[in-house]
């Protein structure tokens, strides 16, 4: 494409354990969890009680703040448990799936005949509305506010991320339906960003504004793409949605069913035979034991990618928005004189103080069994130019982080808090020699903004 945007900054972390592009298993759901903690700043209202029978698409939770936003069950079965934590905080609703899945019928609809209100109502009622993530802040989109535009990333660059082209093969028709539907919700159009190096099966989508990006991670992050297409200013609201959720929206209109099942990449250095499985969000890690064996206590289970995913633990479940489970080794061992060795062949560093960047010329395909060790102690900010090298956005990451730490709203605004989510700065955190938890700092900043600007 002629107007390709090439992002020169970034880093592909060479993590071993990429998923082979075959679907090895269609997971028959056991106990599925619906977790309000998958969504930022959500106060849930429970709509079911233990023992209730639900169908695929039956409402389970609602958003207390705007109660027309529903969260529906991905399986049909019986509510077995409502898990609560401290101060009775709702952590999860567990649903035991039936052998035969029954669906709520939302009715097949022709999107060409629907207006914006009808599309909105259909998405709210079916439980697909939470697929819209609002920027700024990364919260569920507010149905009352029309976004300036809707952005979609049609490729992923995160370590071992599920390949969009493979995971959504054959879904072009559904995605086309979804694009037609959601285009009615905004004046600014549906912006889809493609990988400039791949001929996408979705390139022919009608009614989109197509963009093309090339570059290393985080070029595939929608936040980075927005920043390079049209930065978000104060007062702007845009929405983002993933390709797989577009497919689900398409299926809703084309089949009348709430179907969020997806191909999930089971990957990472600890994954046995990394591959794809077909599963619904909320499936339990216990259901995929064949992919990690009996060493669960030495494994970190991550829903999402290794840089920005969530540590869900051996009892955890796939988050609503994710299509990747990364299995990492817990790095709780000591390494004698690690920092002083001239070479560390089993570790990876993008820093030129080790010489991996030269090894990279010799063995560009080498992958590393990276573990979760911090590789050092936490320090103050010392080195100043490391973040900029991996962040292809026109913001000031160190100054933003400092503003977040100080809780200074004016400065956060100035330095770009509206444009970022944690995932966009995950690489900064990865490369940081001072081992500063940038993502936690940004999250704190976003929380402050939500509280103060509400």
């Amino acid at each position, binding site marked *: 494409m002629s107007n390709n945007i090439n992002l020169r900054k970034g880093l592909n972390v060479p993590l071993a354990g990429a998923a082979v592009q075959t679907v090895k298993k269609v997971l028959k759901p056991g106990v599925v969890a619906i977790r309000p903690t998958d969504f930022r700043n959500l106060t849930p209202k429970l709509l079911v009680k233990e023992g209730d029978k639900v169908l695929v698409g039956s409402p389970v939770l609602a958003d207390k703040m705007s109660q027309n936003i529903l969260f529906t069950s991905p399986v049909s079965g019986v509510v077995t448990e409502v898990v609560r934590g401290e101060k009775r905080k709702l952590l999860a609703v567990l649903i035991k799936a039936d052998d035969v899945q029954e669906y709520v019928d939302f009715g097949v609809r022709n999107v060409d005949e629907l207006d914006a209100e009808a599309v909105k109502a259909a998405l709210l009622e079916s439980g697909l509305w939470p697929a819209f993530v609002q920027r700024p802040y990364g919260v569920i989109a507010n149905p009352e506010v029309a976004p300036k535009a809707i952005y979609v990333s049609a490729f992923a660059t995160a370590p071992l991320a599920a390949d969009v082209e493979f995971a959504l093969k054959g879904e072009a028709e559904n995605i086309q339906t979804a694009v037609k539907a959601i285009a009615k919700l905004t004046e600014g159009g549906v912006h889809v960003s493609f990988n400039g190096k791949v001929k996408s099966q979705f390139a022919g989508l009608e009614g989109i504004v197509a963009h093309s990006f090339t570059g290393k991670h985080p070029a595939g992050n929608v936040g980075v793409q927005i920043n390079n297409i049209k*930065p978000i200013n104060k007062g702007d609201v845009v929405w983002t949605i993933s390709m797989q959720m577009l497919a689900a929206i398409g299926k809703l209109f084309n089949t009348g069913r709430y179907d969020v099942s997806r191909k999930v990449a089971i990957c990472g250095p600890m994954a046995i035979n990394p591959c794809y499985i077909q599963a619904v969000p909320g499936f339990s890690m216990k259901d995929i034991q064949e992919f990690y064996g009996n060493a669960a206590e030495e494994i970190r289970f991550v829903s999402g990618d290794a840089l*920005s*995913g969530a540590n869900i633990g051996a009892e955890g479940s796939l988050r609503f928005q994710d299509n990747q489970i990364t299995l990492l080794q817990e790095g*709780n061992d000591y390494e004698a004189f690690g920092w002083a060795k001239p070479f560390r062949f089993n570790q990876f560093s993008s820093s030129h103080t080790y010489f991996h960047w030269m090894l990279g010329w010799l063995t560009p395909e080498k992958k590393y069994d990276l573990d979760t060790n*911090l590789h050092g102690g936490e320090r103050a900010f010392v080195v100043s130019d490391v973040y900029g090298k991996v962040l292809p956005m026109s913001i000031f990451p160190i100054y933003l982080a400092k503003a977040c730490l100080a809780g200074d709203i004016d400065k956060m605004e100035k330095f770009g808090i509206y444009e970022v989510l*944690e995932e966009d700065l995950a690489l900064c955190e*990865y*490369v940081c*020699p001072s081992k500063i938890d940038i993502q*936690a700092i940004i999250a704190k900043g976003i929380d402050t903004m939500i509280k103060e600007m509400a």
Partner: protein
Amino acid sequence: MNVRNIVDKIKPTFEKGGKLGFLHSTFDAFETFMFVPNTVTKKGSHLRDCVDIKRVMIIMVIALVPAFLFGIWNTGYQHSVAFNMNWTFLQMVWYGLLKIVPLYLVTYIVGLGIEFTVAQIRGHEVNEGYLVTGFILPLIVPVDVPLWMLAIATAFAVIFAKEVFGGTGMNIWNPALIARAFLFFSYPSKMSGDQIWIGGLNRYAEQGTAWATTGGHVIDGFSGATPLANPEGYSALQMFLGNIPGAVGETSVIAILLGAALLLFTGVASWKIMLSSVAGGLLIGWLGHIGGATELPAYYQLIMGGFLFGSVFMATDPVTAAQTEVGKWIYGFLVGALAVIVRLWNPGYAEGMMLAILLMNTFAPIIDHCVIECTLKAKARKYNKVA
């Protein structure tokens, strides 16, 4: 992993509630020195790059080693020349060691002592930053500096230039330069003049002997002046090689360039600052030359005195330098330019590098502020045009 077993065995003694719990930070410093700790990521990215501040700092120290080694030899060589001793290489190195090892003992014992104590009081981990500061400091002082002065200067710098701000990463000025500035203004007689740059000259002037017993004699008409005070006394080649009087580590351009090569190769120091500083020095040196302020061609400004050492090792300190990329160009350029301006137009000070860097350390945050404001304004303009 026998050592590991021993460490694990004694570790509880140093933990909270243990007998030696008050030495926790000290124990931790030595433990993490030997072993990369077993901490795993708790928040955010599950994977982390294996680079840490220890690695960055050790590269910095290694980059200083050529200048350090050359300084040891040159100290002996200068003494040998001044007193007409005709020493062998080993004798020169031995004399150099006798002179320079005590400097290192003083800076590290005093500096690390304070660092460890402060870390202990605050309950922090000991920061690695002082390894570099303590390594640089003896290289930028005259070899004959009295040890007690060095001790006071070190203590002053570590406490008032670093710890009061919160330790490494929070300081405004380069601590090693603050120590040198402290010496320079407190004890000017020991920090400037022609007598101080060669080991033994001071003692000879006061007591008539350079050595405790044997004592040589300074050769007639010998001047210990550095090229800054006496540029005709040395050829450009000598300045480049470094067998001239001067502060311990600053004389050899070759040794400094070796260090610079490592810093640039590993990306530890900013090439933008180094390059722009050299450019600034050359420009002002050239203007001074054609304007008649000096007869020396511009490149002399680079190879004389502490200019290159300062540009490569001290102006590039990432904590005290400008942090924005555009800011680095401005900062570096002004460091180089100011250093040469002081040299050429201020008869009071022969050398301007120390003051130039400290001054620009002070202004670095303002440079960054201006750069950011301009960038944001340009961004807003662009946005409004699109919208």
